[in-house]
């Protein structure tokens, strides 16, 4: 019973904290660029405002357009249920399989691309086509980076992988581990629409990928999508943190351990968020035709990660 309760608290945590993470990254970026910046809790206000607004839907839109926000939100919530956040093993016995997690996240991306095409606006179509290009190139990298971890742990279960790394602390500095981290970090930037690949803070038509797809959304639909993309960012960051630097995560239901696990998770996510803010301040957006090259860098890194974990084994 406590297990299920804990898992629900996990999901509630992701729901509650993810807008703050988005706000934190925006605030840090503003500070680094010598602007004062909106407060960290600004995204909460934006969500409340959007939920209060009416929804405008194009006449040509089909059911796909209306269903997509719910599918995106629900699939991201389902992922929040499966990943190890504060405690391992993940309590609910659904199996926290890496492959399930990654493809649930991609399900949302797929429906967003469909919805972008659905309204028939040229921007939506352009955004969908770009998003699919990026997703198709990011896909093999994610698979390879996963395998490099799974080979080390002998299982694709996220909880098992984390436990395995906890048991053998020296593997953290192993080359396969570091290369895999770098590869997954680059893919994370691409998948969550962060800077060198996509610009999350602009509606300037030529630079956008993710923003172009959701251009037609308004009101509560937009709120759901924005919230889901915040959660996706939080989940990706906590996955990176827990898979590659698992220390602090709780291994039992002991309250003190859980508190430490929670603090460790938030600390690690904040550190990664700072890294993203610093990167986005320093880097310019890549030209679209350079994006495949960046993704092939991450593919090669993942390939090297897999080979070196095989050899070490």
């Amino acid at each position, binding site marked *: 019973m406590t297990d299920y309760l804990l898992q629900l608290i996990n999901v509630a945590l992701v729901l509650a904290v993810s807008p703050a993470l988005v706000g934190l990254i925006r605030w840090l970026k503003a500070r680094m660029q010598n602007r004062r910046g909106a407060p960290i809790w600004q995204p909460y206000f934006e969500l409340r405002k959007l939920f209060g607004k009416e929804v405008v839907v194009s006449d040509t839109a089909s059911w796909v357009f209306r269903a997509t926000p719910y599918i995106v939100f629900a699939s991201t919530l389902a992922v929040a249920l499966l990943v190890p956040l504060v405690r391992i093993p993940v309590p609910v016995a659904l199996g926290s399989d890496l492959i399930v997690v990654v493809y649930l996240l991609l399900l949302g991306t797929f429906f967003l691309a469909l919805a972008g095409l659905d309204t028939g606006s040229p921007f939506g179509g352009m955004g969908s086509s770009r998003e699919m290009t990026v997703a198709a190139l990011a896909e093999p990298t994610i698979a390879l980076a996963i395998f490099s971890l799974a080979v080390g742990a002998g299982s694709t279960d996220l909880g098992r992988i984390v436990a395995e790394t906890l048991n053998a602390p020296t593997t953290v*500095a192993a*080359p396969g581990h*570091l*290369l895999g981290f770098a590869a997954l970090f680059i893919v994370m930037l691409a998948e969550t629409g962060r800077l060198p690949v996509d610009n999350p803070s602009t509606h300037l038509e030529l630079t956008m990928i993710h923003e172009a797809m959701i251009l037609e959304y308004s009101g509560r639909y937009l709120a759901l999508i924005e919230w889901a993309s915040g959660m996706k960012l939080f989940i990706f960051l906590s996955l990176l943190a827990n898979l590659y630097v698992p220390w602090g995560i709780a291994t039992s239901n002991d309250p003190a351990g859980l508190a430490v696990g929670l603090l460790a998770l938030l600390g690690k996510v904040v550190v990664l968020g700072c890294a993203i803010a610093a990167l986005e301040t320093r880097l310019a957006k890549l030209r679209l035709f350079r994006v*495949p*090259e960046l993704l*092939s860098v991450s593919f*090669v890194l993942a390939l*090297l990660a897999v080979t*070196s974990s095989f050899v070490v084994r």
Partner: protein
Amino acid sequence: MDSLFSQLTALGSSLALVCSFMLLWRRSLDSFASAFTIQSIVVSAVTAVVGYFGNDSDLYYVAGLFLLLKAVLIPYVLRRTRRRIGALREDTPYVNTATSLLIGGLLVLLSYVVTRPLVVLSDLPTRSGIPLAMGIVFIGLFVIISRKKALTQIIGFLVLENGIALLAILGTYGIPLIVELGVFLDVLMGFWVMQVFLYQIDQTFDSIDVEQLNMLTEVTIRPADRVSGGGGA
């Protein structure tokens, strides 16, 4: 202790390998020079680590000299040359960037295959770095054959040399100091000679694009001219 040693050398070798991938991914000649500098620092650090764990104090001198030569002197000269020539970017390599990166990955796989017998037989704690060092050698060679600018090719050669140095350190715990000194001198001489060639190419063609060398075709000259104008070109 041994596991820490092998972890550190494997880590250093992978970092050095990632630096050589920077040569395939970046385009500006200055970033090539920085990648080479970082790689040299990493290789020198690996040398010092091998010296510490292998109880060989000579290797500290080798590491120091390596740092001085390849992380200070040669990058300085490279940057100065780049400024004097004014060439900025490697814009149109023979093989495009994405393909180069994939080929680089395949070359590393190849080096795993090639060094497999060596790694299986050896019981050195440094053995896991050997395929990576071999990969650096292959990538250096690939840079030389797939890039057009003479300066990039020189950096490719230097990276290849770094790979060989790393291979020597990991495979044999370093060769005697006197041999290392000879190798350093060779590298320095080779580098200077290439610099001279570079200036000649730049002066003759007003560009360091080696494709221009194709314009050097033989012209039929009358015997009388050949006597007076010998050695020209």
